[in-house]
């Protein structure tokens, strides 16, 4: 079982007061935690890669806890989430898919159960590659006010034999959300969609 070797962790917090419109009473916060890890499968085709998903679970949990702390320490304040991965040049896109289960597990664990699928994206790229991590409401994917994305990246990562893993959380809708659609107040909460 390959160990998870973390080179660096970056935490980014955005506190958004307005975007030209009336500032809401509570500013919107968006946070990302990025971990740069060694890719144990870099440089060769490995058929059986699934065990690494379990290895990543503690990191998913640690990153999720860092996100909550970065957003002020209250898990109940979190309304949106998303995840993503950038695989370095010596790896393959499929290695990024290993992040789906442990990344989602970590966030659900700290949020005390969240019903909606975690929006995600992934790519293969070099150091400094930017990733637009999609964000949706944690309990109902169709809540239009919470459709968002946060651009992340690290200048010196991922190197060829690394993977950059990302988790993102937000505390509310887009800062001046007014494009209609399903509202957070209308969530039925049965299927994770509406």
């Amino acid at each position: 079982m390959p160990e998870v070797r973390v080179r660096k962790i970056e935490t980014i917090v955005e506190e958004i007061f307005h975007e030209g419109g009336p500032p809401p009473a509570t500013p919107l916060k968006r946070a990302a935690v990025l971990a740069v890890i060694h890719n144990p499968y870099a440089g060769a085709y490995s058929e059986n890669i699934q065990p690494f998903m379990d290895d990543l679970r503690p990191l998913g949990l640690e990153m999720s806890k860092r996100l909550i702390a970065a957003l002020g320490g209250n898990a109940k304040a979190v309304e949106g989430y998303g995840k993503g991965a950038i695989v370095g040049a010596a790896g393959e896109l499929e290695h990024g898919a290993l992040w789906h289960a442990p990344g989602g597990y970590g966030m659900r664990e700290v949020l005390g159960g969240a019903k909606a699928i975690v929006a995600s994206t992934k790519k293969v790229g070099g150091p400094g590659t930017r990733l637009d991590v999609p964000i949706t409401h944690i309990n109902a994917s169709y809540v239009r006010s919470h459709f968002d994305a946060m651009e992340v990246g690290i200048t010196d990562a991922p190197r060829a034999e690394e993977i950059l893993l990302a988790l993102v959380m937000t505390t509310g809708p887009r800062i001046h959300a007014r494009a209609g659609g399903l509202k957070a107040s209308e969530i039925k909460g049965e299927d994770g969609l509406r």
Partner: protein
Amino acid sequence: MSEAAAAAKVKIRKIVTFVEETRSEMGRELNPAVRRAAAAAVIANPLAGKYVEDLTELINAGEELGALLADRAVAALGIPGSSVESYGKAAAVGENGEIEHAAAILHPKLGAPVRKAMGKGAALIPSSKKRGGLGVPLDIPLGHKDAAFVRSHFDGMEIRIADAPRADEIVVAVAVTDSGRPLPRVGGLTKDQIKGEDGLR
């Protein structure tokens, strides 16, 4: 300019903080990890789009932002200000502003409240500035806060904000660290040799 305008508070659209924790470099474990943080504010540039001789409004903005951003950056690092080892500052002016606007924010008044947040800070705060579009990267130079010649602490931290600066905005950033570069080994003055008299050595 009126006194009211000079006293006006900075209009901040957003504040972004970045924390980097480097745990290994070239396969070597770093224990403790090397940590650095930056706090950046996206502000309205009240002088965008015109030539204004008197930059007092931006000079005063620098004082307000120095206190705010130093506090945010130190808090993000989670250490007392007195434990900060190196620091730096930078600004990126949107396309309708002047480089001189960045200078007005960074140089006359921003430093004093930054040093206050650190307890001391005898050394020059290294700085960089530029004009650019949305998402432009800022390379914030870093130097030891008590002795500018400490070679292990010469460094830089790149940050960028995807949606800033807009044409009429300025991004202003302060960075702090709890250590120098990972695995420093190019010699020069070391931090245990600091005399701390002149801010240089």
